[in-house]
């Protein structure tokens, strides 16, 4: 199986808008951090060590019967190709650090990715569309158990799975749910919810990682602690909190609609207007408008628009994908113009303007 398809194929498994609560939950992800007993952790490993870890993991994965994986080292990919894997959430931003010796093994359907020599020797990630905590964990757990048959994991009776970062020690598991919470954001309730959730051992952040504000009203809820509780307990807590957030978001949408329907419609249709007619579309504005239109579809206000296209645009609007789609490198300004054109094309609005060079400076 060639690795090229993972780069070329734009849509990946988790983007299909399926699965339970797919109107609010975009994807569910489980990540397990594992290390090999007899090698230094990647943070102080030599290139030789890293290569040997790579070979051991490759061999262990090759013997797995149920899944077939295709692998590549990050150094064999161009910076743009690496960027695309990050934007598809198939590898972490940390893995693509050119000074390190990271590599990745991907399952055919892209739901399982095994990152090698990231912060830990092995990071197993399973990502599913919609709200599927148990399915995602079962899959990750099964891959973990299979790998473990062939490799000696660093494990301690007291501390559990030994990881490079003490915040992962124990289960080594980070379970996260990506949610679209526009109504909680518009009504500013999210500001009170975030601190409350963090008291329950969970953490909420913007979808683009630490410190980032929630671009497009998309939040990631994940467990903060990994030591003490079992995997099942952690998943159950995450499940409970996610379900409460979903219920809360739904309630807020109803209230919003009941109290200020015209204002809400005005906002959502303006956003629809923007993404179907704008000539320059910066990423923050694009994310905000996509969020509005998505809400419009969920509420039945905006019709005749396929949610799958919105999901696709969410991914396409990112810098790496835009440049791949354009087939050339683009400056930030050029990207905003190209993004606007892409949105118009995909949303089926014919561009009736005189044909011009789209990469022209704006």
């Amino acid at each position, binding site marked *: 199986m060639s690795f090229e398809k993972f780069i070329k194929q734009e849509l990946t498994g988790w983007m299909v808008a399926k699965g339970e609560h797919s109107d609010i939950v975009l994807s569910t992800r489980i990540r397990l951090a594992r290390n090999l007993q007899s090698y230094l952790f990647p943070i102080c490993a030599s290139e030789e060590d890293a290569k040997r870890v790579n070979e051991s993991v490759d061999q262990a994965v090759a013997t797995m019967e149920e899944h077939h994986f295709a692998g590549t080292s990050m150094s064999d990919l161009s910076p743009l190709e690496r960027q695309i894997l990050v934007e598809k959430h198939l590898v972490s931003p940390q893995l693509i650090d050119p000074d390190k010796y990271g590599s990745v093994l991907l399952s055919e359907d892209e739901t399982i990715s095994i990152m090698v020599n990231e912060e830990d020797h092995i990071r197993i990630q399973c990502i599913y569309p919609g709200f599927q905590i148990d399915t995602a964990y079962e899959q990750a757990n099964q891959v973990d158990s299979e790998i473990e048959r062939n490799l000696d994991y660093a494990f301690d009776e007291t501390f559990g799975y030994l990881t490079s970062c003490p915040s992962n020690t124990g289960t080594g598991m980070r379970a996260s749910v990506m949610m679209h919470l526009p109504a909680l954001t518009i009504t500013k309730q999210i500001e009170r919810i975030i601190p409350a959730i963090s008291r329950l051992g969970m953490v909420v952040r913007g979808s683009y990682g630490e410190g980032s504000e929630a671009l497009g009203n998309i939040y990631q809820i994940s467990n903060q602690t990994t030591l003490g509780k079992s995997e099942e307990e952690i998943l159950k807590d995450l499940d409970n909190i996610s379900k409460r957030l979903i219920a809360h978001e739904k309630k807020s949408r109803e209230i919003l609609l009941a109290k200020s329907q015209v204002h809400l419609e005005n906002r959502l249709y303006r956003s629809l207007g923007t993404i179907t007619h704008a000539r320059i579309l910066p990423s923050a504005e694009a994310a905000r408008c996509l969020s509005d239109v998505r809400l419009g579809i969920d509420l039945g206000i905006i019709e005749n628009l396929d949610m799958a296209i919105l999901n696709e645009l969410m991914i396409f609007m990112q810098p*790496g994908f835009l440049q791949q789609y354009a087939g050339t490198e683009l400056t930030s300004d050029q990207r905003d113009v190209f993004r606007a054109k892409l949105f118009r094309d995909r949303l089926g609005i014919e561009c009736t303007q005189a044909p011009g060079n789209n990469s022209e400076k704006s």
Partner: protein
Amino acid sequence: MLCENCKERPATVVFKQETMNGTTERHLCDKCAFYSQTFSFSPDQEPLSIQQFLAHWLGGSELLQGQKSNETFPDGPKCPSCGLTFHRFLDIGKFGCATCYDTFREQLPRVFAKLHNGNTNHGGKVPVSFNERFALKKQLEDIRTKMKEAVEAERFEEAAILRDEANTVKQQLADGGDDQHVI
């Protein structure tokens, strides 16, 4: 050159950071550089910037006080495998290898308690191979106890059989398991 963080704006600031492997250099734009200083930006994706968290909150204070009086180890215990000292661990917030956990075993419960809501012991999945090894080790111990009893009671034939059994189990322990020799 584009900013490494946002990949949108041109990089105008070089951001240097000390890590375990030396200095890392990041090229950032004004905006990202501003945030990186204000909010202790960290390139990894942990929910918390653990380095900052450990270094500023735990480091230098109570956790090292025990060691400070000990002049032979001004930096706390040092890992024989990767060379990381406890002091350095608090600085960078990362372990260098699995042996670090053994080296810092006494200090770790306090670190973990702060990071994991007071929890210090693992309560989740255990690798099957680890369970098997654990069972074999236990079996080996049992055989040895019996063997010792047999020797003390001068039942040497029985002891010899037990010794053979112990050797078989020991071979099953692929990693050698134990550094003690069977008689």
